[in-house]
C-alpha cells in the first residue's frame, strides 16, 4: 500500500520523501547521476519562468531522490517566490545539510539559508549558517559580508566590523552595500565621524540605496548636523516618495527640530494606517503640542497594533524563573562563603541601574563627557560573562547559573571571580572603551539588575548608581516609545508596570542581601539641577576632583565633545524638565489612564518617596 500522505510542511512532497525521509537510505552521488539530465531540465524550466512544469518535474525527481540538489533548489525557489517562509526554510535547511560535491556548493547553500533568515530579521537564527558559510568558503567576500550583518545586528559590533573589512579586502574594490553596512556598524559603535566618511564613499559608489541614505542622515543628526540630515532625506524622498522609512526619519528630524506640526503633517491620516514607530513619533509631536488626548490615542494604537497585528505578548515566565533562582542563590549567607575577585589597579567600573526611561542614558551621557570617564555602551555587559562563569564553575558536574557559582568556594574555583573580572576588562578593551586616560567606565547594561550578585563577586566595591523616577512617568514615557524591552513588556502599560515590579524587586533583593556601594539618584533633580547631582555622584564614586562643566553648558548638553558617542544617545538634545511629573497633566486630562497600573505601582510610589505629598 503506497503511502501518499503529503508532508505537513507544505513542500508538496510526500511525507516519507520530505520531513519523514530517512536520509541514510537515499541514493548516493553515483546513482544520482542518472537523474542529472532531468534535474537540468527542471532548472531550465524554472529559468524560463515555466514554474508550473518546473515544480511538477522537481517533485517527481525528489520523489525518487529526496536529496537531488538541483531539484530541491528549484522547489525551494518556487516556494520562496510563493511567499511561504515556513516551507522555504525547511527546504533551505535541507539544502544546507545534504552532502555537497564541493565546499563552494555547500557554502552557497549555507549562505542562502543565512540570507533568507536575515531577510526575516532573524539574525540570531542566521548565525550558525553564516558561520558555516565563512568556514566553508573563507575567500568568498559574500560570506564575510553576511557574517558582518549577522554579527552587527546581534550586538557583536566589533566582530561585525572585522568581517565587513575582510569582505572589502577580498572584493578588492568598493562596494556600496558593504560600505554602507560598515558605516552603520561604525554608527552603532558611536564612531560617527568615521561612519559619515564611509557613508559618503558608499553613496558615491551606489547612490540608489535608500537604507544607506537613511543611515547617513541619522549619523549626520547625531553629529549635530540636523540641516544636512534633512537635506539628505528630502533629496531621497524626492526619488523614493513612498519610502516609509525615509518619511519616518524625516519626521523624526522635524521632531528633533521642534517642528511638531510638520511631524503630524508628514505622518497624517487615520491612526490605523500608520505603523508603531510612526505612531510613536506622531504621538510625541502631539505631546509636545499639548494635545494629550491625541498623543495617548496614537500611543495606544501603536501598542494595540503590536499586540493584535504583530501578535506580540508580554512574556515574563523566563524572567520570573530567573528572579526566583537569583533570589534563592544570592543570599547574604551564601555570599559570605564565596571568594571575591582580587582588586585590580586599572579602570574602575561604575554600574548604572534603572528601568527603561529612568534617565540612565542621560546620566551615562553626562558622565561619559567628564575627563577620565568612558561609557561601556552595552558593548561588554556583565551578562556576557554568565556562560563563561557557568563553564568555569561547572567543574564537570552539570548545574545551572547561578547555583553553579557555589562551586567557586571550592579548590581552584577561588580563582574564577578574578578570571571573570579580567575577561570583563578585556572585553571592554577590545571594544575600544578603555583609553589610556580612562579611570571610570560607566556600565549601564540594561540587564545589570539581574547580575548584581555576580558584580559583587567581581567588583566588590564598585559604585552602583540606581536611577529612580516617578513610576507613572516611567510608564508614560515607555508608553510613548516603540522600543523592544525585556520580556516584551513594552506591549502594554500594564505589562510595563508588571515588569517594573519584577526588576525593582530584584534590585530590592540584592540591596538587602549584599553590602553594595549603592547610590540612588533621582531623575527629577538630575534634570532640574544637574550640576548638584553630578557633584554628588562624582563625590560618591570617589573620583579625584574633576572640573565639572558650567551649569549653562550642562543645560544645553553640549560640553566636551566626546570621541565616542554612545550609540543609543547618538541624538543629543538639550536637557529639559518636561518629563518630570508629566504624568500629572496626563492624569488630569485622562483620569482613567493609570487605573490599571496604579495598584501594581502603588507600593513603589510610596517606597520611593513619591507618595501623597509629591
Amino acid at each position, binding site marked *: 500500500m503506497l503511502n501518499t500522505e503529503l508532508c505537513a510542511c507544505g513542500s508538496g512532497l510526500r511525507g516519507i520523501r520530505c520531513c519523514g525521509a530517512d536520509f541514510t537510505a537515499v541514493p548516493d552521488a553515483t546513482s544520482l547521476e542518472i537523474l542529472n539530465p532531468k534535474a537540468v531540465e527542471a532548472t531550465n524550466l524554472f529559468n524560463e519562468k515555466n514554474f508550473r512544469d518546473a515544480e511538477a518535474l522537481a517533485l517527481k525527481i525528489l520523489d525518487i531522490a529526496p536529496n537531488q540538489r538541483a531539484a530541491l533548489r528549484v522547489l525551494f525557489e518556487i516556494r520562496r517566490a510563493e511567499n511561504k517562509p515556513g516551507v522555504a526554510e525547511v527546504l533551505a535547511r535541507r539544502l544546507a545539510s545534504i552532502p555537497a560535491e564541493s565546499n563552494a556548493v555547500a557554502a552557497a547553500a549555507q549562505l542562502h539559508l543565512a540570507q533568507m533568515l536575515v531577510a526575516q530579521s532573524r539574525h540570531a537564527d542566521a548565525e550558525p549558517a553564516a558561520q558555516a558559510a565563512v568556514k566553508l568558503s573563507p575567500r568568498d567576500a559574500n560570506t564575510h559580508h553576511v557574517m558582518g550583518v549577522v554579527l552587527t545586528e546581534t550586538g557583536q559590533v566589533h566582530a561585525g566590523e572585522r568581517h565587513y573589512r575582510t569582505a572589502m579586502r577580498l572584493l578588492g574594490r568598493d562596494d556600496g552595500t558593504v560600505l554602507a553596512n560598515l558605516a552603520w556598524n561604525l554608527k552603532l559603535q558611536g564612531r560617527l565621524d568615521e561612519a559619515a566618511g564611509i557613508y559618503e564613499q558608499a553613496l558615491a559608489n551606489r547612490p540608489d540605496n535608500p537604507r544607506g541614505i537613511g543611515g547617513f542622515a541619522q549619523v549626520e543628526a547625531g553629529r549635530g548636523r540636523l540641516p544636512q540630515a534633512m537635506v539628505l532625506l528630502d533629496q531621497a524622498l524626492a526619488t523614493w516618495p513612498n519610502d516609509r522609512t525615509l518619511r519616518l526619519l524625516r519626521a523624526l528630524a522635524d521632531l528633533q527640530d521642534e517642528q511638531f506640526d510638520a511631524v503630524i503633517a508628514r505622518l497624517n491620516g487615520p491612526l490605523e494606517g500608520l505603523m508603531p514607530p510612526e505612531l510613536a513619533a506622531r504621538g510625541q509631536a502631539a505631546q509636545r503640542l499639548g494635545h494629550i488626548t491625541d498623543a495617548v490615542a496614537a500611543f495606544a494604537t501603536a501598542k494595540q497594533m503590536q499586540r493584535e497585528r504583530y501578535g506580540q505578548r508580554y512574556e515574563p515566565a523566563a524572567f520570573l524563573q530567573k528572579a526566583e533562582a537569583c533570589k534563592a542563590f544570592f543570599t547574604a549567607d551564601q*555570599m*559570605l562563603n564565596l571568594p571575591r575577585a582580587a582588586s585590580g589597579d586599572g579602570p574602575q567600573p561604575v554600574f548604572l541601574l534603572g528601568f527603561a526611561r529612568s534617565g540612565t542614558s542621560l546620566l551615562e551621557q553626562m558622565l561619559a563627557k567628564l575627563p577620565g570617564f568612558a561609557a561601556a555602551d552595552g558593548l561588554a555587559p556583565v551578562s556576557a560573562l554568565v556562560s563563561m562563569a557557568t563553564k568555569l564553575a561547572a567543574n564537570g558536574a552539570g548545574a545551572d547559573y547561578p547555583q553553579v557559582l557555589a562551586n567557586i568556594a571550592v579548590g581552584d574555583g577561588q580563582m574564577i571571580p578574578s578570571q571573570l573580572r579580567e575577561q570583563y576588562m578585556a572585553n571592554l578593551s577590545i571594544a575600544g572603551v578603555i583609553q589610556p586616560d580612562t579611570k571610570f567606565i560607566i556600565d549601564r547594561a540594561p540587564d545589570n539588575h539581574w547580575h548584581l550578585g555576580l558584580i559583587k563577586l567581581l567588583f566588590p566595591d564598585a559604585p552602583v548608581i540606581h536611577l529612580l523616577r516617578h513610576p507613572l512617568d516611567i510608564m508614560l514615557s515607555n508608553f510613548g516609545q516603540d522600543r523592544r524591552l525585556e520580556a516584551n513588556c513594552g506591549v502594554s502599560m500594564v505589562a510595563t508596570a508588571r515588569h517594573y515590579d519584577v526588576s525593582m524587586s530584584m*534590585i*530590592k*533583593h540584592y*540591596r*538587602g542581601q549584599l*553590602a553594595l556601594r*549603592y547610590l540612588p539618584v533621582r531623575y527629577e533633580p538630575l534634570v532640574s539641577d544637574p550640576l548638584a547631582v553630578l557633584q554628588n555622584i562624582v*563625590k560618591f564614586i570617589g573620583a579625584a576632583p574633576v572640573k565639572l562643566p558650567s551649569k549653562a553648558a550642562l543645560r544645553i548638553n553640549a560640553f566636551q565633545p566626546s570621541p565616542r558617542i554612545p550609540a543609543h544617545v547618538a541624538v543629543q538634545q538639550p536637557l529639559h524638565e518636561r518629563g518630570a511629573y508629566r504624568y500629572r497633566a496626563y492624569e488630569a486630562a485622562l483620569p482613567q489612564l493609570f487605573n490599571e497600573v496604579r495598584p501594581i505601582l502603588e507600593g513603589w510610589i510610596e517606597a520611593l518617596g513619591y507618595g501623597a505629598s509629591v
Partner: protein
Amino acid sequence: MSGQAILSSEEPLKPGQQRVALSDVISQISSMEQQNRLDEAENLASRVLAAVPEHPHVLHLSGIVLYRKGKIDEAIARMEKSIALAPNVALYPRNMCEIYRGAGRLDDAVASGKRAIELAPDDSRAYFNLALIHYERLELEESVRICDRALALDPNFAEAHFERAEALLLGGNMAEGWESYEWRFKLKQAEGMLPKTDKPQWDGTPLPAGKLLLVADQGFGDCIQFGRLIPWAAKIAPAPVLACSGDLTPILRQIPGIGRMVTRWELTGDFDAYIPLSGLPRLAKIAPGNVPLGEGYLTPNPELVAHWGAQLDRLVPKGKRRIALVWAGRPTHKNDKKRTLKLAQFAPLLAREDIAVVTVQKGEQITQVGSYYGNAPLINLGPDIADFADTMAILKNVERLVTIDTSVAHVAGACGIPASIVLPYAPDWRWLLGRDDTPWYQSVRLFRQQRPYEWGDVMERVARSLDT
C-alpha cells in the same frame, strides 16, 4: 473531617455530610492552635462560625488564632463579642487581658485582668497576666504585689517568680530581685541551657583550678554583659571552664581569667560545680552602685579594625558622619515585638544631611534595606559581617551606634564605643528606670519611650542628640 461542611443542627443533612459534635470540633481547633497550624485552625473556626455565629467559645478560640496570625483588630472584635455573650466565663477576660496588652491597650488590659481575677479569684494565671500589665505600665510595686498573690496560690509558678524578679530588678531592688531571678531555669524556654549533671550550682566558695564550669546561657547580650564577672569568679575558682556557643568565642575569649573554652557539653571535663553567667551577679551581689568594668572590657582586633576602616573609607561617602544602626532583634526573643522596629521608623535620623548610616543588622530583617530610598546614604554591611569580631571592628570605625536593645548594644558598650539605645516604655530590667545612662556601660546613652508603644518622639530625640 476538615473537608466536610459544618452544619447547624436545624439544617437537614445533605448526602456525604455528617453531623459532628461541636465539642469535638472545638477541641480540634484548640489542638491545631497549639500545634501552630494556624491557617487550618482559622479555616476550621470560620466554617464553624458560619454555622454557629454566636458561640462564645468558638468566637474566643478563633480570636486567639487570629491574634496569633497578627490580625489583632479582628481578634479583639471576636473576643469582645464572646465576653458580651458569656460575661461570666473567667477564661475570656484572662486571655483578653493578654491580647489587649499585645495590642497596646493597657487600660483595657488592666480592666480585663481585674475582671478575670474577680471571676476566678483562685486562678494563679489570672493574677500573673495582670502582673504583666502592671509591669508594662511601670506600676512595679503593684506588679510585685500581684505576683505574690499568684505565688500564694501556686508557690512553684516559675513565670510568676521570674516576672517578680524583673519588676524588682527594674525597680533597683537588686538583692531581692536576684533571688527571684534564680527561677529562670525553671521556665519552659530555659530547657537545655544548663548541663545535665548532678553537680551542684556554684555557691561562690573557692574551688580548685579548672573545677568551675561557667555556662554562657541566655542571649548573646546577657553573656557579654555578665561576662565582665568572669574575672571576679576566677579569683575565687581559678581558671574556670567556659561553655559557650561558637558565635561567642571570638568575644568572650578576650576576658581574662578563663581557663578553657568549650562549645560542646561533652568537652567540659570534670567539674565540681557549675554556674550560668547570669547567676554571677547574684553571687557577686551586684547593685547599681557596684557594677565593675562599666568603662568597657573588650577590645576589637586591631587588624580587623584596620580592614574595616579601609572598607568603610571605600564605601562611605567622604565627609559624612558614620552612624551605625541596628533596628531589629532576634525574632525568637520573648519581647521582640516590643523592641524590634522597622528601619523606616528611624526616619528622623535617616533624614539628616550630615550622616551616612552603616547598618550592622544581621538576619532576615536586612531585607528592609532593599526598600530604603531615603536621604542619608545607607551602607548595608550586615551581609559582609561574619561574626561579632567583625561587628566590634566596624563599630570602632563609626562615630556612634544607634540600636534597639539587642546584643550589638552590649558589644558596643563592652568596647566602650558610644551607643544610643532606644528602649520601650517598660524596658528590660537591666536598663533600670528614670536615667539616660547605665552603670553597666559608661559609653551608652538611653532613649526611653515616654508613652508605651510610641517611638516617634524617641527617634526625634535620637536624631537631635547628634547635634550635641
